[in-house]
């Protein structure tokens, strides 16, 4: 016997809105993003399992970053609902840490590495609270976790791309969140940085945190992540890497843009 709401919805002929999943650290429902004209994200539903490491995978321009930014309220979404640990976004912001794309900021900005990490503690510091030794030590500890403690007093523009990416990760760590959202954390970084970053992300998982990253390197999806969300404007598939990261799904995601030979080299789930 359907509930009253379900019957009403059915009679109206409108789409059913499933209840927000209470136990998921991150869920988006019916999310559509458009920058005027064609939508770049269309009607995506996704529920991240607790304590998972999720890769958001898709071709360039598939709306991976836009989905993340819309979910965080950085860009407006046409429609959609975001639930973080069962609460609406506005109530759950302190449980979220975010690592934007490295290229999204001006690294010539006059500030030091340690100051960037302290930005992650804005909620704690507020408008006027003085930065005390405890704050500084926490920020330094976060830098140490990404192997950047020796660079605390450097101007951020003096760092290599990989070092800059690690500083961004340290800032996210300083936020002390339960959910980590990262936009292309491995884009254009050196091998040592990639290793340092994935080690930190795996340690976060070990601490029962949830990590969701926009990821572009198909070759490392299976090594780094346990869940995958395949998108190309619409959601193509989502689920455990072991069952979802298949050649068939990748073909559907990338269309003709992915050579079959390339797919054959990937560590894929046995379809």
């Amino acid at each position: 016997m359907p509930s009253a709401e379900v019957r009403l919805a059915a009679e109206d002929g409108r789409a059913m809105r499933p209840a927000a999943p209470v136990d998921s650290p991150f869920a988006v429902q019916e999310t559509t993003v458009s920058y005027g004209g064609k939508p770049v994200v269309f009607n995506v539903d996704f529920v991240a399992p607790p304590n998972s490491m999720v890769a958001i995978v898709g071709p360039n321009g598939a709306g991976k970053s836009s989905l993340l930014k819309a979910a965080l309220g950085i860009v407006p979404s046409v429609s959609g609902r975001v639930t973080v640990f069962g609460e609406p976004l506005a109530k759950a912001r302190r449980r979220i840490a975010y690592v934007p794309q490295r290229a999204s900021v001006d690294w010539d900005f006059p500030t030091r590495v340690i100051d960037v990490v302290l930005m992650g503690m804005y909620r704690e510091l507020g408008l006027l609270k003085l930065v005390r030794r405890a704050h500084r030590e926490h920020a330094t500890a976060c830098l140490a976790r990404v192997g950047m403690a020796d660079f605390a007093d450097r101007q951020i523009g003096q760092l290599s791309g990989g070092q800059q990416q690690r500083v961004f990760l340290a800032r996210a760590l300083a936020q002390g969140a339960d959910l980590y959202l990262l936009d292309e954390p491995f884009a254009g970084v050196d091998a040592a940085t990639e290793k340092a970053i994935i080690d930190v992300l795996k340690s976060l998982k070990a601490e029962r945190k949830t990590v969701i990253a926009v990821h572009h390197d198909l070759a490392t999806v299976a090594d780094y992540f346990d869940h995958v969300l395949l998108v190309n404007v619409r959601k193509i598939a989502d689920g455990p890497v072991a069952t979802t990261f298949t050649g068939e799904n990748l073909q559907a995601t990338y269309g003709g843009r992915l050579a079959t030979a390339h797919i054959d080299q990937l560590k894929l789930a046995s379809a």
Partner: protein
Amino acid sequence: MNAFVQLDLTPLLIGVLAAIACALPGNFLLLRRQALIGDAISHVVLPGIVVAFLVTGTITTWPMMLGAGGAAIVAVVLIEAVRRLGRIEPGAAMGVVFTAMFAAGVLLLEQTDTSGVHIDVEHALYGSLESLIWLSADGWGSLLDPVALAGLPPELPRMAAAAALIALLTGVFWRPLKLSTFDEGFAATLGLPVAAISLGLVVAAAVAAVAAFDAVGSIIVIAMFICPPAAARLMTNRLERQVAWSVAFATLSAVLGYVLAGWGPLWLGGTHAVSAAGMIATVSGVILALACLLGPHRARVGAAREA
């Protein structure tokens, strides 16, 4: 010395306060690549002020502020309209709108009788810093004399209030300003109202521009939004120090510019002083040039980046 208090102290103070009030928001506009906005604001306030004068017949603070604010809103709408309808980039739309509005303000000025008050094209450009004298003063003691203080040119308390307000806002909202200037997306995820911060910065710049416009004209306003912060950026790699340097450079420009304008030509054997506003802007430009040549961080940090 009495002559200094009577003739030079107030113009000097107004010049310094105007320079600081513009340089403070200028630091953030520059880092946000919005330096042109300061330029635009200082131009579009002219028609607003002229219209406000035509409507009210006075040049008191509030009608001018409202007129300038109205003009700023019209400008923003026009820029957006030109950008969308003309399908051109925002910088070009801004350039078209603010020059057109400034020109309209000049025409409006010429067609109307504003001879009763000192509001004319020349005044709009250079201001009238030298005329803001303190006639009721007869020495340093006048600073403690309520009667003499009542005779202060009204531009001084107005400019002082604007500068104090902007300094206070910059101090209180330092962290959100810095955060959203560096990384607006990240600031938004913290729940900071990034659109309001951005608007607030432009409004603060407009307050500085309108307050300074009346006293010192648009030349100083444009120069002070850009030159001291740009020179300061070349002196340090930390925002806190950059802002301090910009205040120092703004003060230096105002004092040195005023002194050079008043006495420089005489030292060179000339007979007439030159425009203080023009000289202040020139000095700020020279400071920027020197910072470009000699500033410790002029090589920009990108050069040190690893491959």
